[in-house]
């Protein structure tokens, strides 16, 4: 296994250096264009002309390399043209004032870096959006240029200042050599250095980068400084080419440079891109510009062709998506061509049938007996068979549970029912008639409503707007929305559900539980007969969960059928009549709930016998490693004190919003405590400094792995090494062999699947993503491990693997502090349980406490109960 993973690893390193297939395509495209121009215009392929193209592309390329860093770190800099002008004019003014030419070069580069530093400060430290900040700086730099030059150019005598832009070494222009040198340096920076790794991490997921101890703001700031300095260097080359400093130099350069970067395959959304691609992109632009001027094409046509080129290049980069879209269209056309009902696979039907189904829905809804039947439904994605042979049915008035590990295909199935994905084969029948769902609107028309796991609410809209989004009530055929009616209906619905939300409240200001209930309200409103609930309780307190159960009862009474997805066994046994189990995309079976018990269900899901999901190992606790004294954060967390010793697992229980996570965040240095003190192994931690906490041996596995845990666009290996590299880089370079070994070890130790270190983390299942996050922190060899909901949304198999790893750490004497909303987990794993209530540590329970003891404390019902239990516990152990 090791050798396989190392091979795959080598591929990824190559990809990082940019020798990817996209770059080869781009290079071929450039060469082809050059050949076409050569065939049309004989002089074009002359070596002299080719060198000329190289020289022309040099300035663009030098600035574009730095711009690649900016864009990879998820920024943009549209001030580069302005900086070229300003830096050039600064150098020109200095030259006029008698400054030696060599120093003038420094003036240009430092001047550019200075303006870049202003950009970086506005963006990195003041938090202004990159586009706006550099827009303002562009105006500023252009203004500065005009102001100091008065609109006049400055002629420069030949000398060092003009040498870079005008001299040649043999036949090769110096500027081209400078550009190649920059390329080499940047390629090394991107591929081999810690800084390069940080660029990708900051652009891929800034919050996760920060949690991984990366100085995000400084990294962002530095990219703009480097871009400014590069623009300054570009200004020097420009001066050399025309032997003068021009106030209008670099006009429109920003767009050319950004075009080169994007054509080179760097993603505007950050986190992905290569500097080699940028070099090819610059070259391509140079070839096109020179070729068109050779052919004496008029300027207007040059504009149009450049525009088209941008589109073609970007579309070519998205070619996987483009091919998929073309295939979809083809299939649709073919389906239309086929006679009605004659297609056994693919469920080919025309759009009218969805409407027909709606008609059927109305007539049958009164009868109350509706049924959705899936027959041999399958769905493939490139390289993955996500669903295979899934057959089951859901009828009005029943709850069918859908179970399976993460990655088993539940989400794909949910998306199929919601009209997001269309199945490749098999078919769906609604009340016996074939059904096709091609969009969310189709699913709604068929009476199917999906409550997605990741909320489908727009945070900036109000509660009422969200409720009606996609089906806003209007005045007849006019597109005018009946806002008052919307609010009245929403208010009635919220009252009905006992939900303390006003229709005009912005969803952003609501709690997670309230949002979940609004999702349910949305389903109620839609008059759907089938509601698909994807882990609806994963973010709910017990009180909110009970309200949801009551609501489900009411829906059932209305003849609604429910497909219920959950990892929580007790919910399945409380609610469901039947269980459908998926494993690895395959349909494993369907059982009546009476036929199975918990153990049997787990076996079906995992395909093997998992007897102990939450193992507990008895370890004699050692010295006290973590001491939290009366810590409050000025917000949710008021005052909490606790101790964790080596080889001990302490659980923090309590309701959501009781301040549990805040304790962990204060210890990890991610939040700054307003009061109290924290000590690790007897030494006080400076507040609010993640790096100091990490140096003291603290590691924090965050609550929301998507937000703070991993960088999705980076590989398993790079994620695992992210925090470790900080102290194991060799003078800023990445020790590649050590990283590969580390990744291999982590994958083996935690059982990450697939065991391919080059695999992007965002395509892994939730459980494997969580293992990667855990692995990232284990790599730093922590003494104090903070786990925030370590198994939320993780399947049973991965849960067991994660807790086996935790037990192993415990054996090795790590102090572990865990927050969990899953009481079985808390009760099974913890040596002691600290229960939080409204921001305070309400009490402590020993191992062996019951669920009721914890809940009593969590709801603030009497410290007396806690001490009584504690006393009983001590008696018991004595």
């Amino acid at each position, binding site marked *: 296994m090791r050798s396989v993973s190392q091979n795959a690893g080598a591929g990824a390193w190559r990809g990082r250096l940019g020798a990817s297939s996209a770059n080869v395509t781009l290079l071929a495209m450039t060469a082809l264009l050059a050949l076409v121009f050569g065939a049309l215009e004989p002089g074009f392929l002359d070596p002299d002309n080719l060198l000329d193209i190289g020289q022309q592309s040099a300035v663009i390329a030098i600035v574009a390399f730095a711009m690649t860093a900016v864009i990879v770190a998820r920024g943009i800099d549209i001030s580069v043209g302005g900086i070229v002008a300003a830096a050039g004019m600064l150098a020109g003014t200095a030259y006029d004032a008698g400054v030696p030419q060599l120093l003038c070069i420094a003036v240009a580069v430092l001047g550019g870096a200075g303006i870049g530093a202003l950009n970086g400060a506005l963006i990195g430290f003041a938090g202004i959006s990159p586009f706006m900040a550099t827009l303002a700086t562009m105006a500023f730099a252009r203004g500065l240029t005009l102001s100091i030059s008065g609109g006049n150019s400055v002629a420069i005598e030949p000398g060092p200042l003009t040498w870079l832009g005008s001299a040649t070494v043999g036949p090769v222009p110096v500027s081209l050599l400078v550009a190649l040198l920059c390329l080499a340096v940047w390629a090394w920076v991107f591929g081999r250095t810690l800084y390069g790794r940080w660029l990708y991490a900051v652009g891929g997921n800034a919050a996760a980068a920060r949690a991984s101890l990366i100085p995000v703001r400084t990294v962002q700031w530095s990219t703009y400084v480097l871009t400014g300095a590069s623009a300054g260097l570009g200004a020097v080359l420009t001066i050399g080419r025309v032997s003068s400093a021009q106030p209008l130099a670099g006009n429109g350069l920003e767009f050319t440079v950004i075009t080169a970067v994007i054509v080179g395959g760097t993603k505007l959304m950050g986190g992905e891109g290569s500097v080699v691609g940028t070099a090819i992109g610059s070259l391509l632009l140079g070839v096109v510009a020179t070729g068109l001027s050779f052919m004496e094409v008029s300027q207007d046509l040059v504009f149009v062709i450049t525009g088209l080129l941008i589109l073609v290049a970007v579309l070519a980069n998205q070619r996987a998506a483009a091919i998929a879209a073309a295939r979809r269209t083809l299939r649709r056309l073919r389906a239309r061509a086929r006679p009605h009902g004659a297609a056994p696979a693919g469920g080919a039907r025309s759009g009218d049938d969805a409407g027909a189904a709606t008609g059927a829905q109305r007539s049958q809804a009164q009868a109350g007996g509706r049924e959705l039947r899936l027959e041999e439904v399958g769905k493939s994605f490139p390289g993955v068979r996500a669903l295979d042979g899934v057959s089951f049915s859901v009828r009005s008035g029943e709850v069918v549970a859908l179970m399976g590990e993460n990655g088993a295909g539940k989400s794909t199935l949910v998306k199929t029912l919601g009209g997001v994905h269309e199945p490749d084969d098999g078919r769906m029948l609604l009340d016996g008639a074939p059904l096709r769902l091609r969009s969310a609107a189709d699913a709604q028309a068929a009476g199917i409503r999906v409550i997605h796991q990741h909320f*489908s609410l727009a945070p900036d809209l109000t509660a009422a707007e969200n409720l009606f989004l996609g089906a806003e009530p209007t005045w007849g055929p006019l597109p005018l929305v009946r806002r008052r009616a919307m609010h009245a209906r929403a208010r009635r619905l919220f009252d009905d559900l006992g939900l303390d939300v006003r229709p005009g409240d912005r969803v952003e200001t609501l709690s997670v539980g309230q949002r979940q209930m609004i999702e349910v309200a949305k389903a109620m409103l839609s008059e759907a007969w089938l509601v698909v609930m994807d882990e609806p309780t994963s973010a709910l307190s017990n009180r909110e969960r009970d309200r949801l159960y009551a609501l489900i009862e009411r829906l059932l009474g209305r003849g609604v059928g429910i497909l219920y997805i959950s990892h929580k066994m007790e919910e399945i046994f409380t609610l469901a009549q039947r269980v459908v189990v998926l494993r690895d995309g395959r349909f494993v079976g369907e059982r009546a709930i009476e036929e199975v018990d918990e153990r049997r269900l787990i076996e079906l899901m995992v395909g093997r016998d998992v007897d102990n999901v939450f193992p507990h190992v008895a370890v004699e606790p050692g010295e006290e490693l973590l001491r939290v004294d009366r810590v409050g954060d000025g917000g949710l967390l008021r005052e909490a004190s606790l101790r964790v010793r080596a080889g001990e697992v302490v659980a923090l229980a309590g309701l959501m919003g009781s301040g549990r996570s805040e304790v962990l965040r204060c210890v990890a240095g991610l939040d700054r405590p307003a009061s109290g003190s924290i000590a690790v192994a007897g030494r006080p931690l400076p507040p609010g400094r993640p790096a100091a906490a990490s140096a003291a041996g603290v590691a924090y596995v965050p609550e929301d792995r998507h937000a703070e845990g991993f960088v999705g666009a980076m590989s398993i290996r790079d994620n695992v090494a992210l925090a470790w590299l900080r102290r194991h880089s060799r003078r800023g370079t990445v020790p590649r062999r050590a990283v590969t070994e580390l990744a291999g070890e982590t994958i083996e130790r935690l059982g990450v699947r697939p065991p391919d270190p080059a695999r992007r983390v965002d395509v892994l299942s939730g459980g494997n993503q969580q293992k990667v996050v855990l692995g990232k922190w284990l790599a730093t060899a922590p003494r104090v491990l903070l786990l925030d909901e370590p198994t939320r949304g993780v399947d049973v198999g991965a849960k067991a693997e994660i807790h086996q790893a935790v037990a192993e750490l415990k054996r090795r004497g790590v102090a572990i502090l865990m927050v969990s909303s899953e009481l079985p987990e808390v009760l099974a794993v913890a040596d002691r349980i600290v229960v939080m209530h409204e921001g305070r540590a309400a009490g402590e329970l020993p191992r062996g406490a019951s669920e009721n003891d914890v809940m009593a404390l969590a709801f603030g019902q009497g410290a007396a109960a806690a001490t009584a239990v504690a006393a009983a516990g001590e008696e018991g152990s004595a």
Partner: protein
Amino acid sequence: MTAQHRKTAVLRLLGIAPVLLLVALLVVFGLIDGRVVDPDNLRNVAVQAAPIALLALGAHVVLLSGGIDLSAGFAVGLCAVVIAQRLTGGDGLLVALLVGLAVALAVGAVNGLLVGYAKLPPFVATLATMVMVQGATLKLATSGVLLTNDPTLRTLGVERVGPIPVAVVATAVVGALMWAAMRGTRFGIRTGAIGSDADAARFSGVDLRRQQLLIYVVSALMVLACAVLVVSRTPVVTPNVGGVSLLLDAIAAAVIGGTSIFGGRGTVGGVLVGALIIALVTNALRVFGVDPSSLDLYKGTIIVIALLLDAAIRIARSRVAAGVAGAPR
């Protein structure tokens, strides 16, 4: 509970931050030089703000959806040239406007198709169309300068209703219509929904492709409105009206007016105030007698300061808002 009320009040105050900024600028500039706040000059400011405001309204819609339209600035030039050419060529105003409309719709449709249907990032798609629009404008404007003299357009550009210039009234009317459209139509709600969370909108049954097409078409309509106003104000039309500087003024106006560049947030009223702020700054610098070659320098500096203020306000708001949301239930 009172603490919560106080927080809500603070939030509300922060919500009208653009207005406060405008007032503060008026006071400061007025103290520096009384001529700035002279009624005649303020009228000038309003007139100068009108084209910026129109283009900014289009930028607002696009930004609200999480997109950006870089082609808008040059498209104003294209539309202005097309309209002026028709007028000088002897066609009536209606024909000229219809041709302008056709051009604007074509640009908007191309943008919308590229973003909505081809799924290109808006920055790239509109960058490409921006370059192409530049090319088309150059191609058309072979004669360079065009002189127009349409009486109806002159009314729009020069006349007044009582003390208020017609151009300002017209802009206010367009602003009111846009306000109604953003607040009271499916289009408005769905545009905000896309910018706030595109997946959420899609799962709720919003047709993203169609909606994005509409968004860029609306942006193009505002481009047309801006072009008409520009032609009506100056009889001399060159390919250089519009362009990058007008686009940047419009985007800056929208952002200073509180429209988030990341989508989802912003109000039409804020955008209009933002346009006034931009126009006021430009105007005040002229009144102060700043050397024209240094004008951009000061303007850039003031915009940077405005952005810093805006950032400070936003941070304050998110702090207060987090406090409200996090209050124990």
